[in-house]
């Protein structure tokens, strides 16, 4: 028996909704006489059922906080990125390179989410940028409320760009708006060509799709045309970039895009 779930101490259970230790409808006296009695009583249990038509957003709570985050970003003229990919696609490597490249151009803060460890935060801090690590425990995604709490710890007025590195996961984080201005989804060449087809909600939600690790394309036998076709199929609206954080190829175009998008945000 395990310690965690309580299976060693079984509680009361029911069969067909009735407790097992139900009061019998007879009792026996010491002399052996048996009296039967009924359990009827004189009111009905039939309460009228009503139907409430609600059509309420289940994620309303998260969405409201996300809108508050978005409002804060907008008021301060901050560009906010939500960066998503499967684990090991190169989010942290790309962000480290990006932070170094943006020095002197955009003042950048980072919020990074993982289930455990602050390894990613430590790597990102080598750039000198302010970095906050959210350890989600067992949660497979970041939620808007976690980001709101982390934002309180960043000097937002001293920043132009906030990069949120989400938990490595191509499924769950797609459903959680964090209030970002731009959703960036990474697709590394070592993942094959069909990730967009396997995880359509994530790719469809992207504003920018970045093909990463292009220096390894030949070794990985990466079919570039097929991958780009698959990205366009699931995310026809997304801007597609290709880069290698290792060689630096394509990094300038990516950073230029961030600078121009940030410049386009008017402070209110």
């Amino acid at each position, binding site marked *: 028996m395990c310690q965690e779930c309580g299976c060693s101490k079984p509680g009361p259970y029911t069969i067909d909704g009735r407790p097992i230790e139900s009061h019998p409808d007879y009792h026996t006296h010491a002399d052996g006489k048996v009296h039967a009695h009924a359990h009827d009583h004189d009111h009905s249990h039939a309460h009228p059922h009503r139907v409430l038509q609600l059509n309420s957003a289940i994620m309303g709570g998260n969405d409201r906080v996300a809108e508050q985050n978005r409002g804060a970003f907008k008021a301060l003229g901050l560009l906010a990125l939500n960066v998503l990919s499967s684990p090991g696609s190169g989010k942290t490597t790309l962000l480290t390179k990006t932070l170094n490249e943006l020095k002197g151009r955009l003042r950048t803060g980072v919020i990074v989410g993982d289930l455990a460890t602050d390894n990613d935060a430590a790597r990102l801090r080598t750039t000198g940028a302010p970095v906050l690590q959210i350890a989600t425990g067992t949660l497979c995604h970041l939620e808007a409320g976690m980001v709101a709490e982390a934002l309180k710890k960043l000097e937002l007025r001293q920043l132009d760009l906030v990069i949120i590195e989400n938990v490595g996961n191509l499924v769950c984080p797609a459903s959680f708006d964090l209030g970002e201005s731009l959703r960036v989804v990474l697709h590394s060449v070592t993942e094959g060509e069909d990730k967009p087809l396997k995880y359509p909600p994530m790719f469809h939600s992207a504003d920018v799709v970045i093909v990463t690790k292009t220096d390894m394309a030949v070794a990985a036998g990466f079919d570039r045309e097929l991958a780009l076709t698959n990205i366009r*199929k699931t995310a026809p609206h997304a801007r597609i970039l290709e880069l290698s954080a290792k060689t630096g190829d394509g990094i300038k175009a990516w950073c230029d895009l961030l600078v121009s998008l940030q410049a386009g945000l008017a402070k209110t």
Partner: protein
Amino acid sequence: MHEFSIMQSTLDLAEHQTRMAGATQIHRLKVRIGSLSGVVPDALQFAFVALKEKTLAAGAAFEIESVPAAGWCEDCAADFPVEGLVYECPLCRQPSGQLRRGKEMELASLEIS
């Protein structure tokens, strides 16, 4: 498994609405889930069974209404079905990433007493 947190939000919302309506029991809970919402219906069903105990929905039937994704073509001013992930207007053959339906995650209705 974000379906667990989504189901927890659903139950919180459902209990709140039930109490607001002066009722004490939920008999049927109906949600609407779009095909591009990122929610797996089976996982949501599983989360419902796991989380409903000790809520007003402990004895409730759970129903999922699936909403297939539909795109919107501006040029043709028409909806089109997004089938097999092809975001292409069948009339003009132009790609369009604009969604009309498919991202729904809604508590549709509650049957209460």
